[in-house]
């Protein structure tokens, strides 16, 4: 993947917005990779959890807003528990999701779930996925 860095991106208020919504100091991360090493869903992700933090530090807006990883993350909090720098990665994932959801851009199309699936799933599965993936 070719990535272009520049000062403008880094100073963009997108970085500040992610920090504010997530309550995290993104610059605390020193890229050790421990979050990605323990993430149970990492094999399904296109950008690793430590890269999500790195991209956020660098203001790579498009890459983050279009990545799969933020929707694959299941908020299991394994990364948060292990980060030696006290960064809550799951909160950063949530902040990026919210930036999209607050523009009414849903990731899950409820209408497309077939009826059989809706009936067999437990209530907590439906409510939690709607909470995480729809506006």
């Amino acid at each position, binding site marked *: 993947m070719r990535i272009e860095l520049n000062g403008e991106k880094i100073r963009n208020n997108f970085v500040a917005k992610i920090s504010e919504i997530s309550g995290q100091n993104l610059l605390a991360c020193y890229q050790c990779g421990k979050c990605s090493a323990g993430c149970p869903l990492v094999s399904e992700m296109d950008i690793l959890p430590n890269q999500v933090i790195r991209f956020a530090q660098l203001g790579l807006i498009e890459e983050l807003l279009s990545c799969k990883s933020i929707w694959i993350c299941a908020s299991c*909090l394994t990364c948060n528990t292990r980060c030696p720098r006290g960064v809550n990665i799951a909160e950063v994932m949530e902040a990026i999701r919210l930036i999209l959801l607050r523009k009414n851009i849903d990731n899950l199309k409820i209408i497309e779930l077939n009826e059989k699936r809706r009936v067999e799933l*437990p209530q907590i599965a439906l409510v939690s996925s709607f909470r995480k993936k729809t506006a």
Partner: protein
Amino acid sequence: MKISYYPGCTLKVNAKNFEDSTIASLKELDVELEELPRWNCCGTVYSLSTDDLIHHVAPIRNLLRVKEQNNNKVVTLCAMCFNTLKRANLKVREEPDSLEKINNLMYLEKLKYEGDVEVLHLIEVLRNEVGFSTLRQKITRPLRNLKVASYYGCLLVRPREIGIDDPENPTIMEELVKNLGGDPIDFPYKTECCGAYQTVDHPEIVISRTYSIISSAQVNGAEVIMVSCPLCAFNLDHRQKETKQKYLEFRPMPILYFTQLLAIALNCPENVLKFDLHYVDPKPILKEKGLI
């Protein structure tokens, strides 16, 4: 002992086996559950953003109902409800401003919430209020020779501040199994996420998680897996159907709520176990061990 009880939505439908086995077991242990009047859905997931107070209103409103019952403790069984209620409670205890705003949002309520309700998970009640040693004395049908792997998943143990035990190597469920007379089996996947709500639109992720988690328990000698979350139960049990189709060498394994094993050990009537709600039938292994 009387204690407020928050069931949550799933226990009334898909996880009736979880609720019925709990009520029957607690009767044997002289604990009376007082179900909250007018409880509402807790929201199932704790909001992880700093600016989303509205999503904390639902859990806090439930805690207000505990006050209305003149109680100061509430017990819940579902790991998701437990996590959401306990984290929201911790948040308003630490942030008086947020508490005030949430109280303002609930201006039609007669009482104000003051952060003074304690949220407990049933396993904690069994250990701390009933006491594992008292429990052991009341067991009439020990789970002799049953090899039980305890699956904690995420929400009982993370984050650390609200977990019922160590987030990386919890042992409270294994202790429970030991006190029920069973053989606890340790396995490395006990706190590894099952994929949770990805089961809705990415079942394939859950299928591969289910395969890894159950195979690991099997390799370590488990005969059944014990859980405390209806979503883990659905993913680990019902998704075995597709797991078997995808991984031909996969061998099915029954998934049981800890309260079902508790009910068996306390000799509760079999109809409270509601095995018809399971995909993998636990009866053969339980019969083999002389437990039903």
